[in-house]
């Protein structure tokens, strides 16, 4: 697929490319500003998503760096600018999968990972804090029972991606995304009622 090809191209450090002349031009600094602008907008969202995907904090930070460097190369080569946030998530997702298989962490349960754990603090009232802890424990139970694809769908939705964008990032059909999210949210809704 053309888009997949774009992703793999942009994750390599191939310097002798057709866009080399453009990179030397004065536009490079404007592109840098643009990339840093996207970084400011999406860094926290991307980090949260990568932590959800089971990466450690250092690994997630590296993937974020690689992703935005890939974006710089992508823009330098004059490649399509359509829906850059979805492109960024897609590249990060692919890099994360590669990294995860490299370090063989995909067997780990996400909630056992120190990079994705709950912080129940912040409520001064002990009763409220207890209620919050119980609520989070309930939600954690639902979360742990979800298949990984469902978790990633949910995490992307929580970061504001549309259904179409989620489908693009994860390589699923729109229908599969809606089914997955509907099932997951129904489980969370049941947990709320308990």
């Amino acid at each position, binding site marked *: 697929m053309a888009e997949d090809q774009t992703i793999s191209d942009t994750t390599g450090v191939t*310097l002798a490319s057709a866009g080399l002349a453009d990179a030397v031009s004065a536009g490079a600094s404007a592109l*840098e500003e643009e990339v*840093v602008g996207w970084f400011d907008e999406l*860094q926290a969202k991307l980090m949260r998503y990568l932590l*959800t995907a089971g990466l450690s904090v250092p690994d997630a930070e590296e993937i*974020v760096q690689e992703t935005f*460097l890939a974006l710089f190369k992508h823009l330098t080569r004059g490649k399509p600018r359509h829906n850059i946030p979805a492109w960024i998530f897609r590249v990060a997702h692919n890099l994360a999968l590669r990294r995860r298989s490299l370090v063989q962490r995909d067997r780990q349960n996400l909630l056992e990972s120190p990079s994705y754990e709950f912080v129940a603090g912040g409520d001064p009232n002990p009763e409220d804090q207890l209620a919050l802890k119980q609520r989070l424990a309930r939600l954690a139970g639902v979360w742990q029972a979800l298949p990984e694809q469902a978790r990633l769908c949910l995490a992307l939705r929580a970061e504001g991606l549309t259904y179409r964008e989620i489908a693009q990032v994860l390589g699923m059909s729109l229908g599969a995304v809606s089914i997955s999210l509907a099932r997951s*949210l129904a489980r969370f*809704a049941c947990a709320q009622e308990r």
Partner: protein
Amino acid sequence: MLPDESHISDEELLLAADDVLSRDRSAAVAKHVSLCGTCRTRKQKLEEALAEFVDFHRRAADPGVRLAGEQRAVLKTQIAALTSLRESWWAVWTSTFSFRGIAAAFAFAFVLVAGYRTWPAILASRPAIRPVPVFFPEPGLTPGAVATADRTAVCGSSQPKTRNVPVSLQRRVFEEYGIPGASPKAYEVDYLITPALGGADDIRNLWPQSYSSAVWNARVKDALEDRLHDLVCDGSVDLVAAQRDIASDWIAAYKKYFHTDSPLETTP
């Protein structure tokens, strides 16, 4: 009341909320929901569940999101390094195709020398994984280390000119420089202060020198080491001064002791 089979599915309620359905279907769903208390309640519960999950997700993942400013600085450094490298390649390409040989070498040397002045500072906040090859030692990682500052020991011994660095130590050097997966064929792990000048077998005295460095390469540095050894042993140069010069900026030391701005022809 609407019969059960006519209710809108959860999937369709979600898709409608995301404005994905066709205009006609979207209007039909909206009309149904406005009339059906059951679907309205389900829609509300799904929305509340999503809000609940978003809160849960933030609480779980936010502690890992940190140092955005530092991360931004690292990104800018990496982009600058990438741009600089692209420019140097571009200079070589254009020169090679227009003037051939000499002009290309001159342009590339200029870019590398300019880069040598600025890269140590740029790379102070070194990324964990380096996106570009290593061409120069980083003072923070390779300040240089000496085993002896005794001229008699350096000049009197018959030390081998080169000494192999153990593979495990080479790997540590690669990791320190953010190139853990680097091929030993792409880099020579080199002593900053050669053992022939009293340099120590210490990771602080080792750095990965890229074989792709076209001008200021390992052969040029070897020539400098031989020259300094001769100068130290015939008493022209103080050993400590030689060690300091080669450790602080070996290219500047080459220019100083060879009285030239570019590497002289050396025999392979």
